[in-house]
């Protein structure tokens, strides 16, 4: 015994023991915290696979499940685990009686009735996974239509953003002109601008153009660059050595060719990370689609799902099924591009 305490004393007094202790505490905290993070995800997935009856009556269980039953005299009766005569047995509850008592029988011997308190016995469940919730949810709303709209807004917008932001970032990173610095400061100042201060006239403008209730208000502005992405790309372009430009210039390349053949290939990681961020933004965006899209056939997934909730709010299993489908693409994208992702965040976070 003394040896063990001596050992611990040595462990904690030496630097190594201290480090070990702090590392295990850290891991413990991280592990318990990550359970808190993961439980909601788990709840979302398991709820999407539940029977609606379970959601209403048996909310305590995370797992999609159903009472285990056995056939007694031609009827399905719920099974309980009962400790009886010092043995555990699976008995069926055939009748509830006053004061919380119940009549239990062994399914094979329905004539021997045991009267026991119901609450003392453990009800048995079996796993009950409803995959059909997914096809049901997809057909209950114009899912493919919403998905199509979301993909158009996301990818056409992403193309427009990459196209315009590359041009503008190139302009701000490679040319000397009297007003460019001032313009760049102006650009930066718009990062902080709350969008509400320009949204109403923009809405009125699109309304006059007849574009409200089409996807155009969500796509067209992307072709005119935005401060955030221009800033990120410009910062990256600045790190590309000027010698490369000079070499191309000597070979007779014009600025557009330099952008296309020198800068953009070098800036692939920055373009990819800006593109990923745009995907996440456009995929999850709710505010602008809500304002600009008025009829069902034009909605994106975000608005479609919210409205689906308005109509089908009791059908939690269907709502959660669509929710799962909606978070899968961002999560997949995240896992496939994790490195670029975190670098991009670091880049935007710190240099910003």
């Amino acid at each position, binding site marked *: 015994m003394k040896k063990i305490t001596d050992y611990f004393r040595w462990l904690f007094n030496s630097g190594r023991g201290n480090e070990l202790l702090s590392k295990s505490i850290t891991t413990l905290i991280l592990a318990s915290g990550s359970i808190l993070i993961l439980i909601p995800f788990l709840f979302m997935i398991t709820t999407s696979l539940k029977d609606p009856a379970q959601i209403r009556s048996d909310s305590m269980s995370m797992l999609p499940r159903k009472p285990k039953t056995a056939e007694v005299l031609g009827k399905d009766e719920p099974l309980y685990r009962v400790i009886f005569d010092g043995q555990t047995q699976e008995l069926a509850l055939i009748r509830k009686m006053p004061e919380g008592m119940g009549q239990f029988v062994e399914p094979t011997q329905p004539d021997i009735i045991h009267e026991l308190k119901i609450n003392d016995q453990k009800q048995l469940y079996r796993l009950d996974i409803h995959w059909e919730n997914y096809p049901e949810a997809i057909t209950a709303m114009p899912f493919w239509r919403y998905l199509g709209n979301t993909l158009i807004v996301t990818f056409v917008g992403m193309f427009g953003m990459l196209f315009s932001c590359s*041009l503008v970032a190139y302009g701000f990173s490679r040319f000397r002109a009297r007003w460019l610095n001032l313009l760049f400061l102006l650009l930066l100042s718009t990062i902080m601008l709350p969008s509400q201060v320009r949204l109403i006239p923009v809405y009125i403008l699109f309304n006059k153009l007849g574009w409200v209730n089409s996807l155009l208000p969500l796509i067209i502005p992307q072709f005119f660059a935005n401060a955030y992405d221009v800033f990120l790309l410009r910062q990256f372009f600045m790190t590309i050595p000027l010698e490369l430009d000079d070499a191309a210039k000597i070979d007779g390349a014009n600025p557009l060719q330099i952008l296309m053949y020198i800068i953009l290939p070098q800036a692939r990681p920055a373009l990819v990370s800006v593109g990923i961020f745009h995907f996440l933004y456009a995929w999850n965006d709710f505010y602008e689609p809500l304002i600009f899209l008025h009829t069902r056939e034009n909605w994106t997934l975000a608005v479609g799902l919210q409205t689906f909730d308005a109509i089908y709010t009791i059908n939690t299993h269907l709502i959660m099924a669509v929710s799962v489908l909606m978070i899968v693409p961002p999560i997949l994208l995240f896992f496939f591009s994790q490195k670029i992702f975190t670098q991009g965040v670091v880049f935007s976070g710190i240099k910003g």
Partner: protein
Amino acid sequence: MAFPSIQKMSLARREELAGYAFVIPWIIGFLVFTIGPMLASLYFSFTKYDIVTPPQWVGLDNYQKAFSGIWDAIRSGDPRQFGDPLFWKSLQVTLYYASLALPLNLIFSMFLAVLLNQKVPGVNVWRTIYFLPSIIAGVAVTLLWVRIFNPRLGILNPFLTNVFGIKSPPQWLGDPEWAVPALVIMSLWSVGGSMIIYLAGLQGVPTDLYDAAKVDGANAWQRFWNVTFPMMTPVIFYNLVLGMISTFQYFTQVYVATSNSLGGLGSPQHSTLFYNVYLYQNAFRYFDMGYASTLAWILFIIVLILTALIFRSSDVWVYYEGQLRGRG
């Protein structure tokens, strides 16, 4: 020809023109989608405008609607005497949320970042898990949390009752007292977004500073408080500014959580009537574009003032490494 041909121009002049040419997409976007609309909404804020009929000049009426009665109300202490009580309610809700969410977010994300900056086994797995919620923020996640908070169907209250023995846990989104705290809890779940920024900041702290502190006999807490924290103040500052601005634009979560509930948008009893939600209501439910523009400009000015305040105060408490070098 009035203009010199491209060939005759000097190299510098050609470079200048090329520079302007490349930034033209942004200049057009800035004029059409930013500065033009901003000026237009400033104009609309002095009008009565419902989109259908042309705007009618009403002078300061909209501003008066928002601010009138303010002195009476302060004197009597009765907020119902305000010209537009809902405007003040929305300001109060927004500031209340900010006062809870911003400090808690700072503490949690900083704490996690410090832990995740250590060389523990599986650190990349932990980082991934904590970062995950922040990439899927939006409608799906809010619908999920609405169900977690649901007193009858959710998992939170059974958990509180069975594990912590809380007899009557709050009704969360159904209770005016608890609706905002519920939204704060929801926001803390996605704390990973700011955590990753702090983590990047921590990785930028030079290790020789820690070594020096160790030599001087500083313990872990002293090393954090005297080395890490001062080095992190610029990042904290950055997150604080952006967090505050985004609180004033908080919308999606409230809309999704409350618009399908019994009391409607901003319920219960206007306890989740965030500033941006109230602005949306005026603009796109009542089509009172004049008043909504007024609210937008008041928001703009609030954001300007708060940003300026933080920038000013940052001289006192934000530490930039370069300054130290400058002072020697």
